[in-house]
């Protein structure tokens, strides 16, 4: 009966017993269990990406009144598998003058930094990779390793477009890290711990109910972090020659692709964990397997909203993106932290219903105030930077091409 209540712990205990009975020391058995668990988690995360790519293409197809993939398998569900097999067979091209070390290590860093986040996320009451006391800081820190990967990809490719793309991406990631971290302080403050398990356990009332404003800021910043529309100007397919990954081909490009989709899902996972109560739900303590289900449903809901964003919103201009970050989200998140800390202190010993009501009222006031401030400032047109002269190639100023074939 233990199996159906909590399959992963059950299998883990069974495997440990088996290994100890075959004469392995308990520490060795533990080590093998950890290695197997990490491998299993990373593999299932990567396999999940295949499914996510299909879901996203299908949904966006439907939203745009298309069918989406519908040729390979039922409802086209094996289309990403076919794409993956194709990408395996492609040639690796290393550009001349590329920095081999940086060029090859970058895709690995990009994927690893996302997978490392999964190590500290609690998936159910009993299943968590590592319950670090600094779990949430760990999530932010490994994100920094991913930024390292992007900048190495841009620089290592020996391509000016790649380098510029990397600069754009890094500028966006670093900027939006600020409101993201500040708004994530609210759950940490209410939970009183940095441990992700602790944050989940503290959510008798989901933090999105106590702090909807912080959740909104965190969600916007996380959409910007994953570089999805409306923040996809770092590699806007319709306007640019791609971003930092322009020189990559084959599986190395595939790894960046996987990292991007996995990052999107992981951000939804983090949001669900720190604002939507993680694995918590009715009966999740008694039947830990339900925790997986609850977490999956919550994460999918958040991920679905991300896809809706991508399908419906137009792209930001770079100055709009930076203005949104530095002039609205960062001061807003700072004021949320200040106000919530003060109010939280004042109503700390009140009954829950009263507390939630006060928090909701404070959040509503903050949201309305920010909305009014934005509306008031909108009347001033932004000062134009640079000149109106756009350096567009025009036919009359182009040098006459005598022999198009022999331009080298």
């Amino acid at each position: 009966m233990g199996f159906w209540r909590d399959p992963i712990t059950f299998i883990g205990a069974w495997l440990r017993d088996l290994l100890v009975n075959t004469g392995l020391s308990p520490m060795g058995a533990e080590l093998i269990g950890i290695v197997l668990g990490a491998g299993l988690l990373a593999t299932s995360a990567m396999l999940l990406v295949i499914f996510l790519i299909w879901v996203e293409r299908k949904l966006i197809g439907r939203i745009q009144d298309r069918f989406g993939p519908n040729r390979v398998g039922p409802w086209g569900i094996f289309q990403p598998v076919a794409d993956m097999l194709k990408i395996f067979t492609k040639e690796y091209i290393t550009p001349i003058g590329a920095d081999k070390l940086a060029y090859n290590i970058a895709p690995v860093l990009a994927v690893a930094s996302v997978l490392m986040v999964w190590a500290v996320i609690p998936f159910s009451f009993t299943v968590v990779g590592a319950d670090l006391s600094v779990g949430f800081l760990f999530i932010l820190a490994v994100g920094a390793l991913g930024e390292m990967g992007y900048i190495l990809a841009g620089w290592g490719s020996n391509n000016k477009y790649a380098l510029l793309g990397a600069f754009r991406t890094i500028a966006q990631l670093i900027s939006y890290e600020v409101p993201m971290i500040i708004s994530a302080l609210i759950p940490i403050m209410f939970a009183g711990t940095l441990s992700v398990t602790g944050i989940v356990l503290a959510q008798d009332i989901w933090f999105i109910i106590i702090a909807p404003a912080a959740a909104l800021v965190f969600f916007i910043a996380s959409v910007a972090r994953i570089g999805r529309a409306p923040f996809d100007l770092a590699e806007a397919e319709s306007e640019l020659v791609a971003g930092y990954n322009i020189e990559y081909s084959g599986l190395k490009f595939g790894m960046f692709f996987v990292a991007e989709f996995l990052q999107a899902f992981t951000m939804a996972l983090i949001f669900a964990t720190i604002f939507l109560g993680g694995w918590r739900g009715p009966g999740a303590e008694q039947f830990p397997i339900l925790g997986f289900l609850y977490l999956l449903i919550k994460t999918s809901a958040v991920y679905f909203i991300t896809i809706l964003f991508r399908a419906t919103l137009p792209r930001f201009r770079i100055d709009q993106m930076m203005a949104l970050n530095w002039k609205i989200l960062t001061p807003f998140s700072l004021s949320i932290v200040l106000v919530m800390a003060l109010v939280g202190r004042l109503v700390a010993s009140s009954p829950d219903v009263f507390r939630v009501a006060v928090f909701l009222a404070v959040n509503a006031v903050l949201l309305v105030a920010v909305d009014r401030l934005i509306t008031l400032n909108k009347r001033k047109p932004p000062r134009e930077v640079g000149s109106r002269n756009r350096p567009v190639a025009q036919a009359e100023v182009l040098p006459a091409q005598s022999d198009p074939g022999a331009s080298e």
Partner: protein
Amino acid sequence: MTGLQIIFLIVTGVTLFSAIMVVSVRKMIHAVLWLVQTLLGVAILFITLQASFFAVVQILVFIGAISILILFSVMLASRVIQDSSPQVVKKWWLPALVATLLLGLLVNFLALWPGFETTLVELPEGSDNIAELGHVLISPEGYIIPFELASILLLAALIGAIYIAIDRKEPQSS
């Protein structure tokens, strides 16, 4: 020799080797990458001392912020990233002599230091050293004054950066 000691030795070796590589490789970007590895090694040393907060902050601040800043400045500042001048200065023996003397003195002093006899104390399971750190940082008996001074310094740096970077309203010519 315990497992912890073996890990310590390996990590120290890698860290020291990377630190030497930082100052000896030709390409500036590679030097930064070696620096990143050195900082990661230090972070692992913090973990072996059960100071996980410092380990994570080490990665977050030094790798996530400072190394990326260094990478940016290296890419933007030096037109030729690869330096081809000789790596050893003339009269290299003089600084080498001074450094050796200094090292000898330091080793002599440290050999007398009683701190070497201290054994590693295992922290009790579940002890929350972040909360302790927070209390110490803001309590008047603790380190409130250095903490506030550091914040003022950072604020000054921030204002200075804004002052340098600000777009002064010049009279528009057109």
